[in-house]
């Protein structure tokens, strides 16, 4: 094929001797093709409006060429995106499971049975019948190093995502993920309130380990839910008037059962349940360790939110 550097293409439909291609050209086509290329270079969605098949083919060809570029690191998954999507999938899976389960079971089931009762110091170190596992699976230093994912992952799904990322490229995970916030063996027990500080009907916000949640004293006992919206991980606020957990970001609203409130703009997946238990006159929650010190008992200096019997603005009744 010949080419002539000196001849400007405007004057030469025969620049490359390909007259058929240039027959129906217009300036608009040049502009559109240019915008398409620039969108791809910026990794942005190009304008796609009521195009012809030729437009589709042009776009697909441009996509292929762009994806082939070693410059754009194309095709590599952004770890933040991967973590967010996985959190959504886990939440969706939990929702699908919840559909076929009896109503309200997730939170009620989260109550720990007395059979589990044991001195707290033992609970953190032994798991029934299982080999000891590292206590800080959820938010480790390595997780943080993975592109600052530790915090993001904790916000999105507690232990699951970071653990998943840590294990990627290594051996497959030993246990399949559960829909609970903190998988068995991956968390620690943290006391969040004195037994008599949360009367029946009260709702108390807590921060424990890497988890922010709400503890409720219901007719059937203590129930704890994640305090993070299942949509985009904004922190929920307790609305004592409506008895709902409201999301300030996109209007998400959840009932005390953890399910999305009826009439919500979009039915988000339910809030994951957190295990609770009552022991030594304290209410305990099973959470991912790491973000806050996970010693027992919590020292006054580092955990004001865990002061026994503390009454904050979020307490009700």
């Amino acid at each position: 094929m010949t080419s002539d550097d000196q001849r400007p293409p405007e004057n030469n439909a025969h620049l490359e001797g390909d007259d058929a291609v240039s027959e129906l050209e217009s300036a608009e086509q040049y502009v559109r093709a240019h915008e398409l290329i620039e969108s791809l270079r910026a990794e942005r969605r190009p304008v796609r409006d009521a195009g012809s098949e030729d437009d589709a083919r042009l776009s697909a060809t441009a996509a292929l060429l762009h994806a082939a570029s070693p410059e754009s690191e194309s095709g590599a998954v952004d770890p933040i995106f991967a973590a967010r999507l996985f959190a959504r999938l886990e939440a969706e899976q939990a929702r699908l499971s919840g559909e076929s389960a009896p109503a309200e079971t997730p939170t009620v089931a989260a109550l720990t049975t007395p059979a589990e009762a044991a001195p707290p110091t033992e609970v953190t170190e032994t798991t029934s019948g299982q080999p000891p596992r590292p206590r800080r699976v959820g938010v480790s230093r390595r997780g943080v190093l993975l592109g600052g994912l530790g915090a993001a992952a904790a916000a999105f799904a507690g232990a699951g995502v970071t653990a998943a990322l840590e294990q990627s490229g290594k051996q497959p995970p030993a246990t399949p993920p559960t829909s609970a916030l903190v998988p068995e063996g991956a968390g620690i027990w943290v006391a969040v309130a004195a037994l008599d500080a949360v009367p029946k009907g009260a709702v108390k916000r807590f921060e424990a380990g890497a988890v922010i949640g709400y503890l409720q004293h219901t007719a059937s006992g203590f129930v704890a839910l994640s305090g993070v919206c299942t949509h985009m991980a904004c922190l929920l606020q307790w609305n004592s008037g409506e008895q709902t957990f409201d999301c300030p970001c996109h209007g998400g609203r959840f009932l005390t059962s953890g399910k999305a409130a009826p009439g919500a703009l979009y039915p988000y997946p339910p809030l994951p349940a957190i295990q609770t238990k009552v022991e030594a006159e304290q209410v305990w929650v099973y959470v991912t360790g790491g973000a806050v010190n996970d010693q027992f008992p919590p020292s006054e200096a580092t955990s004001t939110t865990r002061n026994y019997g503390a009454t904050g603005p979020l307490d009700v009744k």
Partner: protein
Amino acid sequence: MQQNTPAQTDVAPAAPGLRTLYEATLPSVFRYIYSKVGNREEAEDLTSQVYLKALRGLDETRDANAAQAWLFQVARTTIADYWRGFYRLRTGSLDDLLAAGWDSPTITGEPATDQGAATRAAQILSQLPERYREVLSYRFLLNLSLKETAARMNLTEANVKVLQFRALKKASLVVEQDTVGGES
């Protein structure tokens, strides 16, 4: 320790584990979708759609290869639906577009190689006139700006705009011929 939610673990399938499947399949599924739309924004949107749609199927799938094949199937239909929303397409042309640049991942079920798009792009470029190949290489493979490309090719920026359109158009016809003509 006690299971957190016995009611849920009763109904949730025990195998093979969403996390395992996700980790095993996400890179190749994303790369496939990315090679079709060519930008991260759309690729992430569509990848999310694919996994959310495929979730029920994944629950029932026991085998990673089967899961991968299923995901690619969902990816193809998702991209096809997405394109149909914008372009007036014949049925057959969709198949061409979806197949272009990819070695039937739904059939082999194997993870795509990193070289998938690069190899295909090289094949296409090799069939183009030199100046077309040149402008596309600068603009796409080297990711140069219009200005940089014009400087390297000793053209005005307006020249490059015309040339890159024609080159892309020609390349798209090569893609069409190749896919219509059979395996490339």
